[in-house]
C-alpha cells in the first residue's frame, strides 16, 4: 500500500503576456484559484498550492518551467497551456515525470491522438470539434460551397482538413482556399480571391489577430453585404469584444462555453468577473481550467488522498463521469479527450446586445458524444491495448 497524503500542488502554465494572454493567461490562474476554493477540499484538511508561470509561447521555456516545477517545486499537476507547440512539448515532460496534465488552452487534437498520454486530459476544445460543429451546422443550413482562409500553420491546416471532411461528407463542396502566413496585417488580397470564388461560406481557419483582422476587413470589402457568410472556425469571446459587434454581427462559430448560457454559468461568471482586472467574464479556456480542476479534485477525493502518481490519478478521472456547472455532463475518454456539449453561436447585432459582454445568440447544440473525435477514429496508442 503506497502512502497517500493530502497535499496538492498545481501549476498554471500559460501565456501571460502574449497573444493568448486575454483568453487564458491571468484569467486562467484566477479560474484555477476559484476551483481550489470551490472544491471545498481545504476545509477537509487538504493543502492545495497554486503557482503560475509564463511560457511566452516558446516550447523551450515551457518545458523548462514544467520540468523545474516537477523536479524542484514538486508540482503534481499542470493546467491550461495554450499554444499547440508548447502544449505538445509540455505533454512529453508531464508524461516523463508522471504528473497530471489538464490542458484547456491548446487546439491541437494530436494531444489525444498521435501524441496521447496516460497523464493527459484535454478539456474544452480541439480542432476536430471546431471543424465538425461549425462545418456541419453551416452546411445543413445551406452553406454548401466553401472557400478557406487558412493560417499557414499546423493548426490552420488541421482546421481546414477537418472542416473540409465534414463539408464534403455532408454534401457540400470546397471551391478554393488560400493559405496565408501567420500574423498577416492585410487580408484584402485574400478576401478578393474569396469574393471572386463566389463560395457561400468563407471559412476562417485561423486565430487571434489574423481572425479579427480578416473579419474586420471583410466588412470593409462588403463581403457579408454581398451575400457571402463568414465562418470563424476558432473565435473566442475576447476576439468578438475586440472586433466590436458593429463589425462582428452575424458571425457563426462554435464554443463549448459561454458565460450567459444558464444560471450556473451566469453565477460563476459573476463571481469570476468581479475578481478580474477588467471585469471580463471567463472565456471557454478559462472555464475549462476551472472545470478540469474541479474534476481532478473529485478524482483525488475518490482516491482518498494524493498518490503523487499522475497516471493513476488520470485513470481515476477517466472512471468518473464529468459533471460541472460550466460544461455540464460528459466523460473523460480513454484517450484523454473530455467530451461535453458544443454550442453554435451567432454574434448579436449591436441593437440586440444589452450589456458590455452580451454578444452571443445560441443557434444550436451539438451533443458531447457527437462533437469530438469518435474513439474508433482516434489514433491514440492507449486505445490499442
Amino acid at each position, binding site marked *: 500500500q503506497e502512502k497517500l497524503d493530502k497535499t496538492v500542488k498545481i501549476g498554471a502554465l500559460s501565456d501571460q*503576456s*502574449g*497573444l*493568448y*494572454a*486575454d*483568453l487564458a493567461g491571468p484569467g486562467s490562474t484566477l479560474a484555477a484559484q476559484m476551483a481550489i476554493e470551490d472544491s471545498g477540499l481545504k476545509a477537509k484538511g487538504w493543502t492545495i498550492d497554486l503557482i503560475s508561470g509564463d511560457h511566452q509561447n516558446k516550447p523551450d521555456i515551457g518545458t523548462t518551467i514544467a520540468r523545474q516545477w516537477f523536479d524542484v517545486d514538486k508540482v503534481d499537476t499542470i493546467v491550461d497551456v495554450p499554444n499547440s507547440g508548447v502544449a505538445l512539448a509540455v505533454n512529453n515532460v508531464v508524461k516523463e515525470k508522471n504528473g497530471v496534465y489538464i490542458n484547456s488552452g491548446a487546439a491541437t487534437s494530436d494531444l489525444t491522438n498521435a501524441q496521447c498520454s496516460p497523464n493527459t486530459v484535454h478539456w474544452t476544445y480541439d480542432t476536430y470539434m471546431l471543424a465538425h460543429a461549425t462545418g456541419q451546422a453551416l452546411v445543413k443550413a445551406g452553406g454548401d460551397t466553401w472557400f478557406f482562409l487558412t493560417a*499557414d500553420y499546423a493548426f490552420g491546416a488541421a482546421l481546414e482538413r477537418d472542416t473540409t471532411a465534414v463539408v464534403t461528407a455532408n454534401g457540400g463542396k470546397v471551391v478554393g482556399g*488560400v*493559405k*496565408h*502566413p*501567420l*500574423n*498577416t*496585417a*492585410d487580408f*484584402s*488580397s*485574400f478576401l*478578393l*480571391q474569396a*469574393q*471572386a470564388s463566389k463560395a457561400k461560406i468563407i471559412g476562417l481557419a485561423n486565430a*487571434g*489577430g489574423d481572425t*479579427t*483582422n480578416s473579419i*474586420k*476587413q471583410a466588412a*470593409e*470589402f*462588403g463581403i457579408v453585404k*454581398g451575400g457571402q457568410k463568414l465562418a470563424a472556425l476558432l473565435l*473566442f469571446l*475576447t*476576439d468578438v*469584444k*475586440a*472586433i*466590436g459587434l*458593429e*463589425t462582428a454581427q452575424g458571425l457563426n462559430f462554435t464554443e463549448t462555453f459561454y458565460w450567459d448560457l444558464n444560471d450556473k454559468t451566469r453565477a460563476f461568471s459573476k463571481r469570476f468577473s468581479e475578481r478580474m482586472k*477588467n471585469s471580463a467574464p471567463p472565456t471557454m479556456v478559462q472555464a475549462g481550467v476551472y472545470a478540469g480542476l474541479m474534476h481532478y479534485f473529485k478524482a483525488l477525493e475518490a482516491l482518498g488522498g494524493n498518490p503523487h502518481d499522475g497516471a493513476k490519478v488520470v485513470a481515476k478521472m477517466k472512471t468518473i463521469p464529468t459533471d460541472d456547472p460550466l460544461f455540464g455532463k460528459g466523460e473523460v475518454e480513454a484517450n484523454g479527450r473530455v467530451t461535453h456539449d458544443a454550442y453554435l453561436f451567432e454574434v448579436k447585432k449591436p441593437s440586440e446586445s444589452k450589456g458590455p459582454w452580451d454578444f452571443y445568440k445560441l443557434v444550436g447544440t451539438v451533443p458531447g458524444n457527437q462533437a469530438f473525435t469518435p474513439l474508433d477514429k482516434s489514433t491514440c496508442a492507449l486505445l490499442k491495448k
Partner: protein
Amino acid sequence: MQALYAQLLVGLINGSFYALLSLGLAVIFGMLNIINFAHGALYMMGAFVAYFLLNLGGINYWWALIIAPVVVGIFGMILERTMLQWLTGLDHLYGLLLTFGIALIVQGVFQNYFGSSGLPYSIPDQLKGGVNLGFMFLPIYRGWVVVFSLVVCLATWFLIEKTQLGAYLRAATENPTLVRAFGINVPRMITLTYGLGVGLAALAGVLSAPINQVRPLMGADLIIVVFAVVVIGGMGSIMGSIITGFALGVIEGLTKYFYPEASNTVVFVLMVVVLLVKPTGLTGRAA
C-alpha cells in the same frame, strides 16, 4: 486578368503603409543614425491615441490625423532627449538595443492595460462604403489612404532632400560637432527630426486603425518588414524607402495571388536579391 488588376491595386494600397512607415524609419536612420526598433510600438501608439481620442474625448478621425502624430511625436522627442541622445557616435547596435527595450516597455504597458486582442475603431462616416471599379470593389477608405500617404511621402521627401534643412540634417548625421560649430543648434534639430519620424509612424497608425485591429502588437509584427524595406531602399534614403515601400506592396500582392504562403517571406527574397546585385540597396550610400 481582371483579378490581377485588383491584386495590383490592393498591393499598391498596402504599399502605402510600408512607404509611410519606412519613410519615418529612414528619416530617423538617415538623420540620427539610429535603427529605431521602437517604430512599430510608436505606430501602435498612434492607433491607440486615435482610439482614445474617439472613445474618451469624442474627437473624430480627422482631428486624430493631426493630434495623434503630434502627441506621439512629443513622446518621441522626450525619448530622444532623455535616452537616445546619449547614443550619438556609438554603433548602430546600441541604438537598436535601446529602442528594442523601449518597444518592449511600451508594448508591455499597453498589453497590461488593454489586453492583446485589441480594440475596435471604425471607418469615419465620410469614407465608408466603396466604389465598384468593374474589376473590383474598392473601399473608399483604401483609396483615401493611398492618396494621402503619397502626398505625405512626397512632402517629406521634399523637406529632407530639397531644402536647406535637409542638408543640415544630413550633414549633422555625419559630423554633428562641426555642424553645430557652424551655428546650428544640432541637438534641437535632431530632437525635432526624431519627432518628425515618430510622428510619421503615428500617422500610419491612425491611418491603419480603421482597417486593422488596434492591438498592442500590431507594430511588432510589422517592424521587421518595414525595416527590410528601408534596407532594400538603401539605408537612410528617403526616396528609396518610398519607392521600395510601394513596390513591395505590389510584389507582395502578386505573391499573395500566386503563392500566398510566401507573402510574408517575399520581402526577404527581394532583400537578398537586391543586396547581391546592389551592395548598398537600391539608392543607398556606402555603408
